[in-house]
């Protein structure tokens, strides 16, 4: 048990180091002085501010110290929770900006992932029941997974927002409101949340349905299914076993798909100008705010690693095979 978890943690640790190193390397390995090119592209108008910023960033990058010192300084900053100061929103710390946007992204991601996973699995299992169902659900599922997240978002925003007028198509809440714990603000929040959520949910749904359908067909062909059929067990029992066994690889699939779904969330946010990390990425790109961009990158990586670890633990708890192997049962 601990060996397994340790091994997983090891991989995640290495991944984290790799991510941080990539983050550290990129600006230093690009040609030119990163600070000057960043600030010139960011076109700060006030000369006094520019001077202050140049001094600050020069110190942060520490370009005149040896590379390994720069590297360790980078890590040290990281452990202090210091990801630098934003260029775009100077002098606000990157961490604060990110933390302000994270709840919106999580609010989209978590419900979209969990609901699409549950419903997609049901749908896939249902599709494997008959040829007719299979021939309709399967192509629809594949078309959905082939849909770029931002395009479905655009379609929904256009159809249900611009043309239909049922939902707002931009922002996390109306500009006129200030965030507060009131019913009015809450419904406003939900109405802005719904379309981005829906478009993410629908695209992700297709993938889960297909995965489940393929897994369950595989399970229904498995030896234990054949044996039970030969012994006259009803279809219901065999399907129940197959469904349960097909769920297990789908849990792993959740970890594998996480990166894609997060990317989808970022793109969807951009369409709806939703105030999560995706829109923040776009803003930092437009303002050449690489500190912010890299901070977001680290945040997302850490989030993915945590999610992966949670999924690993859940898998161990759910699959008796790994559980038994780990507790080192008899034989």
């Amino acid at each position, binding site marked *: 048990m601990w060996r397994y978890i340790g091994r997983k943690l090891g*991989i*995640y640790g*290495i*991944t984290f180091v*790799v*991510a941080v190193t*990539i*983050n550290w390397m*990129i*600006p230093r390995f*690009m*040609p030119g002085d990163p600070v000057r090119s960043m600030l010139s592209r960011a076109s700060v108008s006030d000369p006094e501010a520019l001077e202050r910023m140049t001094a600050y960033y020069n110190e942060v990058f520490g370009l005149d110290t040896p590379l390994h010192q720069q590297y360790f300084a980078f890590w040290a900053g990281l452990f202090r929770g210091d990801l630098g100061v934003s260029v775009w929103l100077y002098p606000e710390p990157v961490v604060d900006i990110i933390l302000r946007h994270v709840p919106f992204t999580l609010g989209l991601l978590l419900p979209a992932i969990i609901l699409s996973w549950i419903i997609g699995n049901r749908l896939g299992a249902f599709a*494997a029941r008959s040829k007719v169902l*299979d021939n309709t659900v*399967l*192509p629809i599922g*594949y*078309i959905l*997974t*082939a*849909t*770029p*997240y*931002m*395009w*479905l978002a*655009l*379609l929904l*925003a*256009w159809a249900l*927002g*611009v*043309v239909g007028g049922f939902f707002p*198509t931009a922002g996390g809440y109306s500009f006129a409101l200030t965030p507060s714990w009131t019913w009015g603000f809450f419904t406003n929040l939900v109405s802005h949340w719904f379309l981005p959520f829906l478009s993410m949910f629908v695209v992700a749904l297709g993938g889960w349905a297909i995965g489940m359908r393929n897994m369950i*067909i595989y399970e229904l*062909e498995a030896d234990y299914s054949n044996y039970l059929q030969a012994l006259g067990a009803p279809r219901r029992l065999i399907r129940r076993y197959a469904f349960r066994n097909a769920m297990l690889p789908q849990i792993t699939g959740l*970890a*594998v798909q*996480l*990166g*894609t779904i*997060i*990317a989808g969330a*970022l*793109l969807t946010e*951009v*369409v709806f100008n939703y105030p999560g990390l995706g829109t923040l*990425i*776009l803003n930092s*790109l437009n303002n050449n705010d*690489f500190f912010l*961009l*890299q901070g*977001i*990158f680290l945040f*997302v*990586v850490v989030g*993915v*690693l945590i999610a*992966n670890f949670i999924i690993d633990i859940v898998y161990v708890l759910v699959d008796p095979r790994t559980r038994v192997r780990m507790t080192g049962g008899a034989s």
Partner: protein
Amino acid sequence: MTDVPGTPGTADPGTTGAGGERRTSETLYYARRNPKLLIGASIVLLLLGIGLIGPLFIDHGPNQYIGPQSTPPSGEYWLGTTSFGQDVWAQFVHGLRSTFLTGTLGGGIAFLIGTTVGFVAGYKGGIVDEILNMLTNVVLVLPGMVVLIVAVAYLDVRGLVVQALFIGLTSWPWAARAVRSQTLSLASRDYVDLARLSGRRTWRIITSELAPNMSSYLVMSFILLFGGAVLIAAGLDFIGLGPAGGVSLGLMLESAVAWSALQLGLWWWFIPPGAGITLLVGSMYILNVGLDEVFNPKLREL
């Protein structure tokens, strides 16, 4: 099932010439009757045709301002014009072309890395396998799109090839995993053992014994990687990290959103590029299912 001669699936691959031929003709027989394969392949070919031939019939550049602004589709401008008076059809046709290019390049690079890593890890085993497996897992866990955003953001000159290269470098891990597990199951077969005993070099064994025996599997992996590369490229283009001054379906979506096509109701600006991507990648996936059913007798009947 194992004891009836002449049933599909019982023919041992590569035993006799006659058996091989029979298998091929059987595959063709199923291929010609598989609607998923046929529909998927014809849509892909149709789109490829449009992307290859279409630009030849258009005598102005895709980004030129040639027409009236913001006109809906008409006889003259099949897909209407943008708010700058660019021909959407011209952009679409050129965009399809570059989409095929990115898919082939990006998917191809990912395929090369993924299969090489998978073959070597599965065949060599031991410490090589451990290391490659670790590498695969690390890249697999990293959220590829976000890595790409950071990496591409620092590039001063963004081109299609560089974009494809970066996509290829981040999207290979699952292919490596899949090929590795297939290789593991093949590597213990007699003919591979024989080749190994006769002192053939590793890469010879991989290319002449392992790869041919999982060719259908490799084809399907490439198709999936192609589709993935197209989608990732579209995403990068959409947030403004596309090839500078180029045309692509993702860039069309980007400019449509940037110039408020949504609010202005210029649906002909943002529907075609997305539809093109969805149709292309979707038909490739469906074609893949068709291929799977043709190559894998077990799936022929539900």
